[in-house]
């Protein structure tokens, strides 16, 4: 599961959804692998306006990546900064969580990630 995916996901428990604790989910015991993908600058530039930067910063820190800048880079800054483009590409596109858990900060429920597939089905008592 890609780091970028976590930017679009919350706890699947209905009562959690509107709470601030349910987003982003917190990786736990994460086993990461790195793909080697060609960088696509256009895509990164088009993704930037979609990204919730504070949530991405939290995820990056929790996965052991260096801290992201406090503010998201502007389009112009990104275009001029190849290193930052590469770092973002690496974090968002190339980093995959193969095994581990995703934990809701509100209810504490842990979603398993196995073989890169996250399981958001709930146990019967939470449905």
């Amino acid at each position: 599961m890609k780091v970028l995916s976590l930017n679009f996901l919350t706890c699947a428990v209905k009562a959690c959804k509107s709470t601030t604790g349910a987003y982003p989910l917190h990786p736990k015991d994460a086993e990461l692998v790195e793909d080697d993908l060609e960088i696509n600058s256009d895509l990164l530039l088009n993704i930037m306006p979609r990204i919730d930067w504070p949530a991405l910063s939290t995820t990056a820190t929790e996965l052991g990546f260096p801290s992201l800048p406090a503010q998201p880079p502007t389009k112009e800054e990104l275009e001029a900064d190849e290193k930052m483009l590469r770092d973002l590409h690496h974090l968002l596109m190339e980093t995959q969580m193969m095994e581990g858990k995703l934990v809701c900060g509100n209810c504490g429920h842990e979603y398993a990630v196995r073989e890169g597939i996250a399981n958001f089905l709930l146990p019967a008592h939470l449905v």
Partner: protein
Amino acid sequence: MLPTPDTSHVAFERVYEPAEDSYLLLDTLSSESETAFLRSRFGGNSADATTAPTSAGTIPAPFVVEIGPGSGVVIGFVNAHAPHIFGTPSVLTAAIDVNRYACAATRETVRKAAADVAASSTSSATPSVSKSGTFLDAMQGDLTAPLRDGSVDVLIFNPPYVPTEELPRQPTATDMVTSEAAPTFQDDSYLLSLSYAGGVDGMEITDLLIGRLGEVLAPRRGCAYVLLCAQNKPEAVKQRVRGFGPEWRAETVGSSGKQAGWEKLQIVRIWREEEQESS
């Protein structure tokens, strides 16, 4: 015609095999009317979008999610042919299915379809330009449950639409947690039943999904493509959506052949118009 993704690797004894409904979605999503709609909404208006530079760097990449992808033939198609459908390769795609085998199958179908597009365009002058969208993940889940509110730009749903006396038990976290245990014939029948059995009018699952659209679709540009059969009472479904508010729209944008005067299968596009019409 755009090539249909290869699904020869998929175990059809436990994952829904592409059929007339799947192909109707492919045809509709790549039709002139729908590519025109999607291009106008998500940026690339250029007819030659595969080579056009994305000077429109300010248009955020759409997030396209298929619910219940099964083999992945539809999302694999949409991802592989994103430049044709959306007018830009800057498209993010993902899928959610209750069936873990479907998630694994989808991942592979999407990968193959994108690789086929890349292989067929090696003669291109700009080989480094991506020819497909970017697939994020296939995840196990119940409809849109894990998706953040307002995050989805295009939702695609080929539901379990066959009217059945009752709905199969819906799976929980402990069902099929790994893909290592060999499924029994009963397991396989159960998994397939989830892909087609829709309960009363074939609408029990679709009704749940439609009830969640207002939350999960992006407030301004979000839209959904939902497949219905005649027994689903499509006119009533469209009326329900229009009842959500004056900005809501629901129209049939694709259909299979008629049977006894009824469209057997149809695709309904659901969206909100930014500006309310004043008449």
